[in-house]
């Protein structure tokens, strides 16, 4: 009976702060109050906690003397101020852009980088065939041989022929690339895989041929 009371007292005293903060439910509050009204130890503990709580709540906010603020203001005006971190702000903007791009629809997600690459490529190419000297490096552009040379002009047939040659070259490069891939795959992937499989089959065949290997013991 005594230990039961002690347990009850223990739990009630644990609930004192919750009661003071108004965190108990109506039922818990009722049972708390009824226990405290019957148990003098818990009532005393509750009064002690309540007295401390009231003492804390009654403590006033204290203000510092005006002279402190006055001297602060004179001190502060000679103090330097730190500037906002521009680099950080820039990187945050870039991060925001990446976040937006990742959440954008598929067309936008791939379209925007593609357009950026295209814009970069256009920017890197000579902007106009009319003034090729602008694309020359400055040292070459200033050499007299270049300055006196006339711009080379190509006929439409020559341009078509050049494009055909270019296509042929690209086709050839594609074929070479394909063959290289096949060769690498065959040598480094297929051949070892085949060897491993053959070795496994060989082992199985040997085991089946020897009846002792099939002995369950």
């Amino acid at each position, binding site marked *: 009976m005594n230990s039961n009371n002690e347990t009850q007292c223990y739990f009630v005293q644990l609930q004192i702060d919750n009661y003071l903060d108004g965190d108990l439910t109506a039922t818990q509050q009722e049972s708390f109050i009824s226990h405290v009204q019957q148990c003098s130890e818990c*009532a005393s503990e509750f009064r002690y906690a309540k007295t401390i709580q009231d003492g804390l709540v009654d403590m006033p906010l204290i203000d*510092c003397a005006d002279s402190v603020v006055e001297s602060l203001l004179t001190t502060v005006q000679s103090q330097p*101020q730190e500037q906002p971190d521009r680099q950080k702000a820039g990187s945050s903007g870039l991060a925001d852009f990446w976040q937006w791009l990742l959440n954008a629809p598929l067309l936008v997600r791939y379209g925007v980088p593609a357009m950026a690459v295209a814009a970069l490529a256009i920017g890197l190419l000579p902007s106009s065939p009319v003034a090729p000297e602008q694309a020359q490096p400055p040292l070459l552009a200033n050499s007299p041989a270049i300055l006196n040379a006339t711009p080379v002009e190509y006929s439409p047939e020559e341009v078509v022929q050049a494009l055909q040659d270019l296509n042929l070259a690209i086709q050839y490069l594609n074929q070479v690339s394909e063959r290289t891939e096949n060769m690498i795959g065959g040598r480094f992937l297929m051949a070892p895989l085949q060897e491993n499989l053959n070795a496994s089959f060989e082992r199985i065949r040997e085991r089946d041929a020897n009846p002792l290997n099939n002995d369950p013991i």
Partner: protein
Amino acid sequence: MLAQYQQAITQHRQRVFSFAHYSLRAKEDAEDITQEVFIKLWQHWQKIDHSKLGAWLMRVAHNAVIDHVRKQKNVASQTDDYAEPEEQAAEALTEQQVDDGKFKEVLMASIKLLDDPFRSIIIMRDIQGMSYGDIQHTLDMSESQVKVYLHRGRRKLRENPVLRKLFDTMTGRDAGQKKSSAQVKADVVELGKRK
């Protein structure tokens, strides 16, 4: 900008100074902390988020108080390596203040003896009436952590032997004048009504 800065000082100086004062119980130290906090505000004025200015100031004040307490402890350990500062303070209270019956003064002294974050959370919540959300932002803790520390801090405060002795003296328990059950019942009902 200076006008805005002055406005910020006017708005927050009481809270910052009170926090430092109740944490350190020394007017000059609290003034130094207040100045330090507002100088930092000036230095970081263009970098801080002004929508969370109150929490920022309290965080700086909290850090400054912790540094100050640490320095004080170092000085105390250099002067007396054998006595614990808590014991010294408790003895001083026993001799001087319990007899005077100044419960609030003893309570303030007991708050100062608490370790951080118990002390800071009790000051912020129970004395300054800050919301759990503001304390959470100031101390960079979750709300449940703040509540746990608050309850543990209050319990530690109640466990202070000097404060307990003073309360017992005040209520007559120490002199063997135990109240009757009817008196206790009446007290509880009265406390419930006051709440």
